[in-house]
């Protein structure tokens, strides 16, 4: 197939338009009113960029290419369509990991080609300039450095995201901690860097490097991604996923430079920067620094003696709880991820509407990291049809808790644990929490006596003004609705 000579120019022009559309799309996604059209614009840019790439000169393996695209698109499309909204965070992790893996694979292919070409150059010292010039044209020093860095970052993002996915999906034990873990991880990282640096130094000088060095570099990078993510507790996963999202962006930008592809450079860099900022915002919402998230083994049991919690758990049944709230003046509903998992948001909203009809003032109190990521709970409540004006952020609702007659906690745990304020030895000490403990009465819907995602006892559950309503979120919410209805009936 021969292509007209102006084709590369068309391709370049489309790449430019795609880059504009990505930025425009992300810009629109940053406001609730225009968010929906944003993804469509970005999608149009993406589709155009992918189609014109087929028309670049000298493309081979088109059969393989089309097959791989069709399989990848169809599988992800089906999975992405089918998963429940609650599983969205791990889906982001999964798809992000795939992007990181792709970036690393691109770097690997380019480095293999480069080294294979170098192997054909007679290895004399100094290198004969005429033999070297042809190979050096493929990858200059900057490209070589960025190719290696891109492989490292992309590989870490790949395996790290897959571990994050497995953890959020509940496929893996939540923590994997052993003594001197940090030093082991550091050693793995250092070994990867040494392998990469040796190969890189040889490549820059014009000497072919041993394949073992490249293989070692890639394998160690992949292992480091796993080792780095294993000790991080589930509660910190959103921050980690966001960080890997930024990593993938950077890897894409670097490999884009290696391939001299402007659309990849710009899109990758925009995501790298946006992802970094987003990671900081998330870490800040949890009052933790990024270093703290990565290296403190959060929720690893604390180590130091935590304060004993005195008191007993006092159960309540659904009809009593319903009556208590029916005659209250103000009720605050504090939903957590547990509510979403139980798919109880629709029932809870039904219950809230019945309360509103009785003249009770109902508010939904959302912790910044309720659910699994900032804004995740808002999405889930929006799905159930809860209007925006009933949803309050932590800073707005916290002063109102002392005037709240009943706080109904459903499926939230760590974000309402007063230990974060009182116990300096607790791993969550200093994390901003919803001040539920200051409400006049607290009802906690909970499946059993288990601990939260962070693995810490919750002092709120043992407080004098707290009653436990045991049961699955969905069943408990149905019980509350039934309780209200008998009251009216």
């Amino acid at each position, binding site marked *: 197939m021969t292509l007209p000579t102006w084709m590369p120019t068309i391709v370049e022009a489309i790449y430019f338009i795609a880059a504009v559309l990505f930025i425009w799309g992300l810009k629109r996604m*940053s406001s609730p009113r225009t968010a929906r059209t944003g993804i469509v614009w970005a999608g149009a840019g993406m589709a155009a960029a992918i189609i014109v790439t087929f028309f670049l000169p000298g493309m081979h393996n088109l059969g393989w290419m089309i097959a791989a695209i*069709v399989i990848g698109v169809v599988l992800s499309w089906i999975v992405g369509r089918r998963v429940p909204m609650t599983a969205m965070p791990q889906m982001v992790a999964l798809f992000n990991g795939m992007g990181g893996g792709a970036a690393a694979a691109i770097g690997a292919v380019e480095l293999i080609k480069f080294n294979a070409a170098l192997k054909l150059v007679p290895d004399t010292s100094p290198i004969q300039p005429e033999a070297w010039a042809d190979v050096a044209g493929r990858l200059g020093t900057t490209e070589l450095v960025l190719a290696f860095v891109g492989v490292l970052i992309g590989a870490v993002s790949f395996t790290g995201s897959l571990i994050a996915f497995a953890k959020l999906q509940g496929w893996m034990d939540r923590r994997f901690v052993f003594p001197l873990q940090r030093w082991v991880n550091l050693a793995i990282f250092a070994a990867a860097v040494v392998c990469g640096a040796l190969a890189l130094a040889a490549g820059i000088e014009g000497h072919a490097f041993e394949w073992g060095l490249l293989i070692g570099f890639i394998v160690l990078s992949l292992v480091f991604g796993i080792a780095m993510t294993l000790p991080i507790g589930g509660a910190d996963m959103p921050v980690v996923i966001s960080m890997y999202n930024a990593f993938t962006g950077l890897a894409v930008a670097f490999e884009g430079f290696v391939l001299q592809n402007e659309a990849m450079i710009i899109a990758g860099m925009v995501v790298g920067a946006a992802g970094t900022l987003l990671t900081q915002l998330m870490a800040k919402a949890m009052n933790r620094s990024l270093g703290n998230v990565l290296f403190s083994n959060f929720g690893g049991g604390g180590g130091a003696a935590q304060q004993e919690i005195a008191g007993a758990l006092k159960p309540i049944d659904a009809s009593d709880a319903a009556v208590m709230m029916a005659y209250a003046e103000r009720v605050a509903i504090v939903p957590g991820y547990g509510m979403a998992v139980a798919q109880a948001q629709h029932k809870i909203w039904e219950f809230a509407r019945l309360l509103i009809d009785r003249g009770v003032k109902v508010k939904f109190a959302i912790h910044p990291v309720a659910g699994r990521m900032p804004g995740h709970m808002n999405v889930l409540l929006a799905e159930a049809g809860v209007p925006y004006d009933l949803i309050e952020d932590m800073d707005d609702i916290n002063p109102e808790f002392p005037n709240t007659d009943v706080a109904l906690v459903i499926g939230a745990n760590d974000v309402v644990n007063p230990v974060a304020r009182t116990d300096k030895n607790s791993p969550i000490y200093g994390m901003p929490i919803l001040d539920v403990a200051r409400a006049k009465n607290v009802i906690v819907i909970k499946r059993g006596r288990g601990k939260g995602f962070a693995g810490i006892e919750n002092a709120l559950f043992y407080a004098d003004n707290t009653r436990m309503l045991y049961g699955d979120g969905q069943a408990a919410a149905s019980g509350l609705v039934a309780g209200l209805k008998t009251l009216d009936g």
Partner: protein
Amino acid sequence: MITGFLALYIFMLAAFTGYEIISRVPVILHTPLMSGSNFVHGIVLVGAMVALGHAETPIEIAIGVAAVLLAAGNVAGGYVVTERMLEMFKASKPAASQSAEKMR
């Protein structure tokens, strides 16, 4: 050909653009936006196609196919997930105003 400082300028301007886009976003949009940016780096598919398109040996082709497969998954999955999340915002808007009226 992008070289040296020109590349640095592109990196720098793109980084500021990304930073600016996110810096004034309400918390409720953090998750969709993260998902959206996850979709945008799916542009890696274009690079994967180029790498596979110029692959010659079986090992290069194998890694190239893996790259295209993974990148295609990133693109399609990223789009679907983001679209589904943002759909919620459309559905909730009229519902919000309706029930707000009901309450009065």
